[in-house]
């Protein structure tokens, strides 16, 4: 427990990802395999079902610390986290122990669930009395099943890769699906035999840069392929050795989330890798992005959900064809291969959007325009078509690695969009009076979040309830009607204009800010900075 707690504290005390990765990799290199397995389990957000009811935990700490209900409630309110409140309120320990994490979880904490109340309490008190404040925090977090400490799965993968010498995609693959935190599992993670992961391995994604000037600066339009910029989940679909794997851009295996794509992929020949955008799609139209997010975030995919939110893969590139890596082929050649594969017989006949192989696979249509002005006209339809704008790809370009300037550009319809962190909340009015619906958002500046926008609208009712619950559980301070919220939730904020404003602390004022969507996929460290926001000032109007 001491070793694991040291890791927990180290992760908690830095916002730098390299330091987090180093701390974890050092831990994984020195821990026992069973402790390692449990550590991976906890850090990747897998949870044990709540082992002791919250009310009983509170009861127990109140008895130990001699606190009345209201004083406990005030303390909880000030801290905002139950596991931490309990750790801070308990009297100092009189014992000391260093029992391995595995033993804590398997032999001490998990058995609590089936014990009668009196024995549960007795054991809790005994356990707390052996632990320091930080160790108690860890124990309580295991019991309450909430172990979020700002480490993404990706960072855990990096650390395991660093500690084991096994490459990241292999580790990522090995962490997918159902596994138990056992010694075998952990030693398997470290195994250098990488055959198991070969078939699943994705290619690095090629990413576009935002267009910084008028498109005619790119030269002849004939040298470019234009298509819509779809607002979905960028994905790679891999079909190899009779198996299918779907990876998201964050290199997470999301196969299980899209059973209909998995089924359709059986029609693809072995040795095929397609790059595209998974969209919520019905009756020839894109559905709102938040519907698609449900497919990712819901714990289980019910038949009902699959029916309500059908998806399609809007394919726009092929990276592997007949088992050959074709990324160095020119874009227009790759596109031909893709069209031929997914819409046989319809080679380059516009619109190629007509699905043939399986209607779930669609080829992102080329925009057949002859001048940049025509393209600009088309772009004005973006909002109506529920796309984010236009992608421009140089016709003779290879498929690159990472974000590179030059060959792929995104020409978004609304360049004014930032990812900001929820920092303050206020109750709404009217029917929303009991809910926290008015939010203030901050962006990073000198390591701090500075408020830049206040927005009321943009979330649906279910999301508002979720955010409201988060705010109540994560209030750091209250002053009057306003709560300071633990910075954690990231939202994409869209706005129409921006200008300098000496009246505002941030130095900028934005016009008509609203919530474009809840970025449940983004950690707060990746929210935008004030510098990024300010750099938009000379970017012209929103169109």
């Amino acid at each position, binding site marked *: 427990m001491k070793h694991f707690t040291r890791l927990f504290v180290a992760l908690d005390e830095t916002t730098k990802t390299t330091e987090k990765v180093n701390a974890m990799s050092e831990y994984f290199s020195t821990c026992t395999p069973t402790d390692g397995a449990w550590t991976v389990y906890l850090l990747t957000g897998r949870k044990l079902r709540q082992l002791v009811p919250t009310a009983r935990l509170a009861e127990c700490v109140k008895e130990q610390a001699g*606190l009345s209900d*209201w004083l406990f409630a005030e*303390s909880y309110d000030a801290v*905002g986290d139950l596991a931490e409140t309990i750790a*801070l309120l308990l009297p100092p320990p009189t014992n000391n122990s260093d029992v391995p994490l595995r033993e804590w979880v398997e032999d001490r904490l998990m058995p609590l669930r089936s014990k009668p109340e009196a024995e549960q309490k007795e054991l809790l008190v005994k356990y707390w009395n052996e632990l320091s404040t930080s160790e108690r925090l860890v124990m309580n977090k295991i019991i309450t099943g909430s172990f979020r400490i700002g480490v993404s799965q990706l960072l855990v993968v990096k650390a395991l890769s660093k500690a084991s010498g096994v490459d990241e995609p292999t580790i990522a693959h090995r962490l997918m699906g159902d596994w138990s935190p056992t010694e075998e599992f952990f030693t398997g993670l470290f195994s250098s035999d990488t055959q198991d992961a070969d078939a699943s391995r994705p290619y690095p994604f090629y990413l576009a840069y935002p267009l910084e000037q008028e498109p005619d600066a790119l030269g002849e339009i004939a040298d470019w392929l234009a298509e819509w910029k779809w607002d979905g989940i960028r994905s790679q679909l891999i079909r190899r050795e009779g198996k299918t794997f779907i990876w998201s851009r964050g290199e997470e295996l999301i196969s299980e989330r899209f059973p209909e794509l998995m089924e359709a992929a059986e029609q693809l020949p072995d040795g095929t890798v397609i790059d595209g955008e998974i969209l919520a799609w019905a009756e020839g139209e894109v559905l709102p992005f938040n519907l698609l997010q449900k497919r990712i975030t819901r714990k289980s995919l019910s038949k009902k959900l699959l029916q309500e939110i059908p998806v399609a893969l809007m394919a726009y590139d092929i990276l592997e064809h007949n088992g050959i890596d074709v990324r160095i082929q020119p874009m227009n050649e790759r596109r031909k291969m893709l069209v031929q594969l997914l819409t046989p017989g319809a080679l380059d006949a516009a619109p190629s959007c007509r699905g043939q192989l399986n209607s779930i696979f669609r080829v992102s249509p080329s925009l057949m325009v002859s001048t940049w002005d025509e393209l600009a006209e088309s772009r004005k339809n973006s909002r109506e078509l529920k796309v984010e704008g236009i992608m421009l790809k140089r016709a003779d370009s290879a498929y690159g690695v990472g974000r590179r300037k030059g060959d792929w550009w995104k020409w978004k319809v609304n360049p004014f969009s930032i990812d900001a962190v929820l920092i303050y909340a206020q109750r709404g009015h009217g029917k929303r009076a009991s809910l926290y619906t008015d939010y203030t958002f901050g962006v990073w500046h000198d390591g701090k979040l500075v*408020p830049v926008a206040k927005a009321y609208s943009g979330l649906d009712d279910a999301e508002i309830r979720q955010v409201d619950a988060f705010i109540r559980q994560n209030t750091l301070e209250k*002053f009057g009607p306003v709560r300071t919220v633990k910075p954690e939730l990231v939202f994409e904020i869209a706005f129409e204009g921006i200008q300098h404003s000496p009246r*505002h602390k941030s130095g900028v*004022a934005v016009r008509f800010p609203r919530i474009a969507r809840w970025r449940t996929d983004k950690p707060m460290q990746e929210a935008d900075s004030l510098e990024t926001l300010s750099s938009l000032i000379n970017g012209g109007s929103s169109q």
Partner: protein
Amino acid sequence: MSKLIYATDKGLYCEAGDFYIDPWRPVERALVTHAHSDHARWGSNKYLCAEPGAKVLRHRIGQDAQIEAIPYGQKLTLNDTTISFHPAGHILGSSQIRVERNGEVWAVSGDYKLDPDPTCAPYEPVRCHTFITESTFGLPIYAWQSNDELFTDINAWWEKNKRDGKTSLLLAYALGKAQRLLKGVDTSIGPIYTHGTVESLNQVYLSSGVTLPETARLSSMPRGTKFAGALVLAPPSAYGTPWQRQLNPVSAAFASGWMRVRGIRRRRSLDKGFPVSDHCDWQSLLKAIHLTGAENILVTHGYSQILVRYLQDQGLNAGTLSTQYEGEEETSTAEETSSDAVSKSAEETTFADGRDSADEIESAADKVEVQE
């Protein structure tokens, strides 16, 4: 007959003695508990404080101020009252002020702590009928560790940074906290440098007879001096400023009672927090209140309503007293330089309860009004 001491718009006033205690606006006669800027403000005609704190007070409110100082425990008659200063254990020269009129005794604690601090005289309980106490950390989640544990942690952090080739930047109030930390750290680990604000207060402490380890003013070092492995003491306001760049690579830690709560530290994006305060934790507050034997407790700045409710639950006669004291600010910029401190008007006062954050909200709200 009116209460012996009551709050006015200028500060806590004792009518029978015709003096104010820690007034927040200029008055004729101010009795000052200690030199922190929310208690010792510039502009009054005459100041009275405890002798050990006289030089610190002069440093904070100016060379021309008329300051009189008397030893701890010495009684002085002011009109119909007898007053005396008693150690509060908060910072050098900090006092509780005892006020007596016809056998009725009140004690105003200012800011205080019970934990040992080698840079100032230890807290001394004052028996009284009415006790005016602060409540900065008046919640049971606030419980300080011992000095031994604290300095073990700080030294370990410094040593680790030294091994990693980093500078250790320790952010603490320039007056009091910085000297207490300086006196407790293991000076064998490496050299100690100071920010100018801290250094000038170190000099005042030294001239007041407090011994401190040797330090050097960072700005007096030749250009290109490497600070890796060193400890640098600076006020919280230095964090994230261009001044800090010369310390890179650096690990920054904030020494404050607020660091007891993870969320507060994380919100400030700090690597490290050491929960240490020159205020009482919850248990110390209760103990101090008990030791005074007071029948009436008036609670000032901090979690006053919570402490009052708790004391009332215990059958004590307790109430709140509204003041403009700040306690230990979570987002402190109050203890900067003396000139900053004195120019701060009462209207600009920010509160430890996050009122300054509320201002940000207001500005954010303004923004929306302007735009829509």
